[in-house]
């Protein structure tokens, strides 16, 4: 397994709620866990940890996560991704589903 850590600037996410989990840990897929960071965390940055079975795709992860952070309000969130060879298309889709689930709940 390869592990990647990044901290990315993103618009602050206003809502607060319990953790959100989307996706599955299965070949070609990934699971994404969204949680609120500690109260004293910087509101306009998110931290992302990726555990992936596919090695050597660091730069692509960086590009995908940068675009997600630009597209969605992820600031103040902690994101954990368990990946089993999902393509960027799947990761992008799951991230959109995760943040939609987060924003639908009432804090």
């Amino acid at each position, binding site marked *: 397994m390869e592990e990647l850590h990044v901290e990315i600037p993103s618009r602050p996410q206003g809502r607060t709620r319990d953790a959100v989990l989307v996706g599955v840990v299965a070949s070609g897929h990934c699971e994404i866990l969204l949680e609120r960071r500690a109260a004293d965390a910087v509101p306009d940055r998110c931290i992302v940890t990726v555990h992936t079975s*596919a090695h050597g*795709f660091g730069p692509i992860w960086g*590009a995908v996560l940068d675009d997600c952070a630009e597209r969605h309000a992820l600031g103040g969130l902690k994101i954990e991704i368990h990946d089993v060879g999902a*393509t*960027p*298309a*799947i990761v*992008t*889709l799951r991230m959109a589903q995760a943040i*939609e689930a987060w924003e639908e709940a009432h804090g």
Partner: protein
Amino acid sequence: MTNQLKTWDKRRRNRTRRLERAAPYATGRHVRAEHVEALLHAIIEPADRVCLEGDNQKQADFLARALARLNPSRVHDLHMVQSVVALPEHVDLFEKGIACEIDFSYSGPQGGRLAALVQAGKIRINAIHTYLELFARYFVDLTPNVALIAAESADAAGNLYTGPNTEDTPAIVEATAFHDGIVIAQVNEIRETVPRIDIPAGWVDFVIVTPRANLIEPLFTRDPALISEIQVLMAMLAIRGIYAEYGVRRLNHGIGFDTAAIELLLPTYGAELGLKGKICTHWALNPHPALIPAIEAGFVESVHCFGSELGMERYVAARPDVFFTAADGSLRSNRAFCQAAGHYACDLFIGSTLQIDLHGNSSTATKGRITGFGGAPNMGADARGRRHESPAWLQAGEEARAGAAVIARGRKLVVQVVETFREGMEPTFVERLDAVDLAQTMGLRNPAVMIYGDDVSHIVTEEGIANLLLCRNFDEREQAIRGVAGYTSVGLGRDKRVVEDLRRRGAIRRPEDLGIARRKATRDLLAARSIKDLVHASGGLYEPPSRFRNW
């Protein structure tokens, strides 16, 4: 002065000699199965051009196995001409020295063995063709001396019933029978009366009843359970951004899960958009089970088929308004005419591929395999001989020539639908096709390209639609391709400013530009999510082959 010394009926005399040699093994047209090798030894001469019916689905497998058992010292250096190299025996012929050269269209599972034989110098591949192109050459410079064909049944006189899987047989027999060739048919049974006469007895020389029915592969069945959300998203893009946009009523789908997703979204997403009756009314298509819900929902007026599809016989017979059937209800397919239909009578082709380069050239050629492309080059080509107008054709033509000083003409929509990454994170978009490097190993001068970039009108990926018709030069075309190539190195190499400009002009459209929310792209949108759902949608008429029965 007449040329009194030249013989003008050499072929006919030669045919007579062959038939005389075969006479001891036949009663009228009928030959017993145990005499098949003796018959073939009698009929076939060294260096003959032999068409062994290896269609896309139907195989004259009994005759193939018999041919592969012949004595290479008696029958050798054969020139094989056939649509598909499908069976191991098709390749065994070359390993054994019975055959030495081949012209074909597609090879699928035998692609690896073909490549190995080319490397070993045991086979000469003269050319890879698209199906209609190969049939065309049967009438010019590739006329078979002997055709080994497969039919379902024959009557005592030798009339043949080829049934739903008629496929290539009429084209093969027409060329062979009318130029002094010999036609040998394997049939599953003799019947007192055949349901209809597909091949008249006068065009057939020998009929052999086989112990087992001929092999037919269910190549066009796609289990909806395997369709992914990304494929649903791309199907939504195609329907909204292309089918609805141009008003595409007449079309062909290349086989695949991407196109099966489109078929299954018509009764749901297509209906939501109010498109029933406005798109997808007339098809050149095999009877895909995935099309059942769209047919039942009233989207489809007509389907002409290249072949049949195992398990669809009863459904087709129950829908004679839609399909081309005989009075007995059974389907009549015809690959040659369906390919012609796909070329000239359809406004759109859409299919998938393995690689696309910066010009839009598309190929499935990969290292270590020689497979060919079947019908795709014919379907996915602008029909420059076409003259009749349709709204989609006119609109595409206008977009293609906007601003250029060329005479007005229409243009076929040729769409490639692909995910930016394939399995194992292999990028679909590449700077250089593998096919370019493979040309030499295949013994060809030109790379094996499935669809040329200047025929491609649109590329659909999970990132959106690139409309190459609206690109005014090679630079814009390259950036439009990069603009939908996602996070592949081709995609990451995009000029963001040019891509933004292309998006403003509509040459690139993202899902959100078409009102498509990515999150709405779920499997719930599919009109059927399993084979069982398809059986239910057909009212029990669809009978999937056992390998698809998973409940």
